[in-house]
């Protein structure tokens, strides 16, 4: 994959098994977002193929994709923002709103349904953006640094929240992050990309078992996996 003569991805060979939570980490500008764009069908590769269930991805609309910024529309209330994806794909406004409201209720956010997004905190905006994407009901969910813009404490809260509900959102999840702890906490498998042009530097299964809890971050096994990830990222382990 080349963008404006810069080779961004170079022979990334990756198979994501259905039902897996995969985390992609790598240095800034390594091409993680480009890879998600390819998976979402937003961009086409110069060489090679991107397939889903054995069928080449040539179009958008097959997976659910959440970009780095929440992109909530200021002229829509929270519930109308959550229903945006469904309305965009042709669900009637009423049916889409009903489903959006049900989703907000399921995740305990119904009190914010009629609030404009400007009144929400950063963490709440991210939750709404995630629900908007998840409501599409697609089997694969692509998350591009969903909590990257949040402060550390809020990010911890949302990581815990996502850990609890990930199973309900989609079968297969690909999460781009540069937070090593986030990757280990959430994922079944962590793939480390190299600097541009990106290749796979490390493909690490996370054998921490489920259900997971944040307390696991203090275990020896967690530290060992974290050491390997940091090493692969070129950051020397302590």
């Amino acid at each position, binding site marked *: 994959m080349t963008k404006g003569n810069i080779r961004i991805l170079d022979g990334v060979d990756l198979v994501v098994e259905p039902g897996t939570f995969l985390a992609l980490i790598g240095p800034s500008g390594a091409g993680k977002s480009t890879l998600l764009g390819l998976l979402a069908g937003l961009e086409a590769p110069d060489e090679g193929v991107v397939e889903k269930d054995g069928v080449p991805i040539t179009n958008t609309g097959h*997976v659910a994709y959440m*970009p*780095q910024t929440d*992109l909530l529309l200021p002229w829509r209330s929270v519930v109308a923002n959550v229903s*945006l*994806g469904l309305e965009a*794909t042709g669900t009637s406004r009423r049916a889409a709103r009903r489903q959006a409201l049900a989703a907000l209720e399921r995740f305990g956010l119904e009190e914010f349904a009629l609030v404009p997004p400007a009144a929400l905190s950063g963490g709440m905006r991210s939750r709404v953006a995630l629900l908007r994407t998840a409501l599409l009901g697609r089997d694969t969910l692509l998350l591009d640094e969903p909590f990257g813009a949040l402060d550390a404490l809020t990010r911890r809260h949302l990581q815990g929240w996502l850990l609890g509900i990930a199973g309900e959102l989609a079968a297969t999840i690909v999460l781009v992050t540069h937070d090593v702890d986030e990757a280990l906490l959430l994922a079944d498998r962590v793939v480390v990309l190299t600097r541009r042009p990106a290749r796979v530097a490390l493909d690490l299964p996370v054998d921490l078992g489920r259900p997971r809890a944040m307390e696991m971050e203090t275990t020896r096994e967690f530290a060992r996996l974290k050491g390997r990830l940091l090493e692969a990222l070129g950051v020397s382990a302590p």
Partner: protein
Amino acid sequence: MKRTLLSRALPAALLAVLVLAAWESLVWLFGVPEFLLPGPSAIAGAFWESRELLLRHAGPTAGEAVLGFFVAVVMGALSGILINRSALAERSLYPWLVVSQTLPTVAIAPILVTWLGYGPLPKVLVVTLFCFFPITVATVDGLRATDPDLVRLMRSFGASRWRIFSMVEAPGALPFLFGGVRLAVTYCVIGAVVGEWVGSSEGLGFLMIQDKAQFEIPRLFAEISLLSIMGVSLFLLVALLQRIIAPWTLKRNPSL
């Protein structure tokens, strides 16, 4: 809310009272003749005396202004969308729209009357010529300002071009559009009067020409005041419409 509205309007009202009082007393003090500069009381008197005549002629002027303005909004928005959608339209049409704005509309008006007669049509056209350009520019800028990431998000959903336009681009352009519309609405009354000056048998512009010729200067001032009131009312109407249609556009702009 009421309090802030009052405190916002109060300085302007106080200034108006001061200026009117100074005007009245200077005219009275120096004995300025009415045909040069009538005082506010004389203008108000002329207004009251000729109220039926003035209101009868205000009707056509307001009608031309509003109709021409409405056509300008529709044409301005449509041409803006066309220019935004098509690179060919942008390259071929946009430069000529700019050129059309450098032609003095005041000079075109007589030609329009020659072509289209003394009815309301040439006046409506003059108003449209006065008003449409700011709306076109605002629409182009507003659509161009759409966050590309938002379009990407909509594409990832699998949304059609029409849905991307109607759900994201068009509402996002509304703050810009209303900026252009507020600017344009202040021109529309001027456009109608210019159209009437050139050739008409009714309207406040027609009345002004007659009153000037007959030295009915207080009534001439009354007509100018009425035109101003008309323009301000239309501006407030647009502001009210914006508050109803697109309230989120006012959040960061409390000056309205």
